[in-house]
């Protein structure tokens, strides 16, 4: 077990015994198994980071192919599925990563470092949006787009992002990372550049708020209410 695995393990045990949030099951972020297949040229993150620092011309493509889909998902979940600017933000995350690759202290932590950049850029975007005002109501965009996913799932997800618009950027981000991405508190704290206790406090605050306003979103509420209550 590497140091990150050990930290996951320790953190999960501690919170399972001592956690107060009522969320005792702590899903650990799935490691790289669900990512886009890596190219054969570079097999591990350390070698990839080395190649990026040496300005290997193929390295940026390998970086994007390895983490592009995953980072896109993180960005889309933080800012909302219906936001067309998520592709611009995805581009910006990787440009920022390439510019700052010299700052990455632990090359093995490349993925969580990218998530940190994605979180930072997404939060910046959310702040800008707040200043500008939301240009298109999310429900309108969803309705127009249509989808082949089950209608109840579409409705629940639409309601979820409407609900999240009532959160501030910080709570929204920790909430998404913790509950939708399934990160543990160490990972949330690292991605958001917070101490673990601050991350825990924000997760608790966001979860309590979520529970309070959830009944106002019936399409979402029924996904959590369980069969017994339907």
């Amino acid at each position, binding site marked *: 077990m590497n140091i990150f695995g050990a930290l996951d393990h320790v953190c999960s045990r501690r919170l399972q015994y001592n956690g107060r949030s009522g969320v005792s099951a702590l899903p650990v972020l799935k490691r790289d198994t669900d990512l886009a297949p890596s190219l054969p040229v570079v097999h591990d993150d350390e070698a990839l980071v080395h190649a990026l620092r040496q300005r290997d011309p193929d390295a940026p493509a390998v970086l994007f192919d390895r983490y592009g889909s995953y980072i896109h998902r993180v960005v889309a979940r933080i800012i909302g599925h219906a936001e067309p600017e998520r592709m611009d933000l995805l581009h910006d995350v*990787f*440009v920022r990563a390439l510019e700052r*690759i*010299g700052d990455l202290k632990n090359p093995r932590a490349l993925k969580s470092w990218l998530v940190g950049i994605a979180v930072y850029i997404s939060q910046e975007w959310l702040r800008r949006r707040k200043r500008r005002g939301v240009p298109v109501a999310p429900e309108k965009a969803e309705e*127009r787009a249509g989808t082949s*996913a089950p209608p109840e799932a579409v409705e629940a997800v639409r309601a979820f992002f409407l609900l999240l618009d009532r959160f501030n950027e910080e709570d929204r981000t920790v909430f998404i990372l913790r509950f939708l991405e399934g990160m543990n508190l160490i990972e949330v704290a690292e991605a958001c550049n917070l101490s673990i206790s601050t991350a825990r406090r924000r997760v608790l605050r966001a979860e309590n708020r979520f*529970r309070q306003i959830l009944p106002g979103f019936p399409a979402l509420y029924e996904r*959590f209410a369980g069969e017994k209550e339907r």
Partner: protein
Amino acid sequence: MKPDQPLDWEPFRKDVADVERAADWDEGVRGARARFLLTAKGLPLRPKGTRPTIVWAAVAVAASIALGIVSWKRHPTEAPVSFDTGIEHATGRVGAILSAPTSESLPVHFSDGASLSMEAATRARVTETTSHGATVVLEEGSLSVAVVHREATRWRVTAGPFTVLVTGTAFDVRWSTAEEALVLDLREGSVTVLGPSLGPDGRRVHAGESLRVSLAQAQNEAPRLSDTAGEATTAPVVREETARAGEGNAVGRSSWKQLALEGRYADALGAAESEGFDAASRRASSSELLLLGDTARFAGSPKRAEQALLMVRARSAGKHEAAMAAFTLGRIAYDERRRYADAARWFQSYLAEEPGGGLAREAAGRLIEAEKAAGDIAAARQSASAYLRQYPAGPHAALARGLLNR
């Protein structure tokens, strides 16, 4: 749900995964990848571990403030670019259809200095504007595009499944819905074209070159790139490849398509099922998906028809094909499913998206029928009144008058 009961996130996580899978984000991610790789080529790397000293930081802060003041004066806000159309400079609206008259071109001017010239009878939309550029969807016809290069310029022109990424250049682009073919002639600079058969990085096109690519061609071979001097020799490519697809040579996709075009709907649906309906749907263009939807409907499978049509809605939001899908979904909801409220919603969607479309009169009439069948008489009367104002002698006029005279 009890206050102290832990929330079970698994069902909702599955919902999110389902919605994300159906959203088909691959093309957008490919676009971001191509833009990133273009940017990466000229990107300076900050040396490892370098930290500006306090003095240098102070200098940098002072310089930033000075530059900030200058740039604030030049660009006071991060407002998206705006645009106007025609010689009268009518204010443009994001999402609205721009239609050049049949006898003359239509100029479109953007606040960042970019300009479009839409040739006669061309249809296009500006679907998104940002502070760095805009996205233009070419639905049919030809555009001459001139984009002024600036740092972080982000312009996109999409036509069918193809996307042209622009940072600063001048080019002509043509798109034919019937042939599903894109022709791009580059006059200045360079662009990257993304789309089927163009590879994960897309195809870079330089000044003086011409790219011709069609969906049928994309199924069979790599697109041809030539300099403009060789244009005449490459011109037949699109026609040749389109004809090949029509003959049913292309593997999979054209087999069900060929059968559908021959009116053998049950056989066509069987062919689509045998190659995997989901895979066939993913490979199909939006216009082919409409055909697949009709094929399934005529073959007696409303479920498959809805699947294909909802995919059109997801993939081509805001486009003509999406409106056509809405109309057909309305017909299925009414005729096959007997879900009249759903049918009314789909007909309303069609009318909202293409109020002057070829099926507008029919949709307006069927909306009255659907609302009446759903028992929403107040809405039906309202729709009837609107119908009579617009189509006093239309085929649903008698029904409309009957409702209003109740």
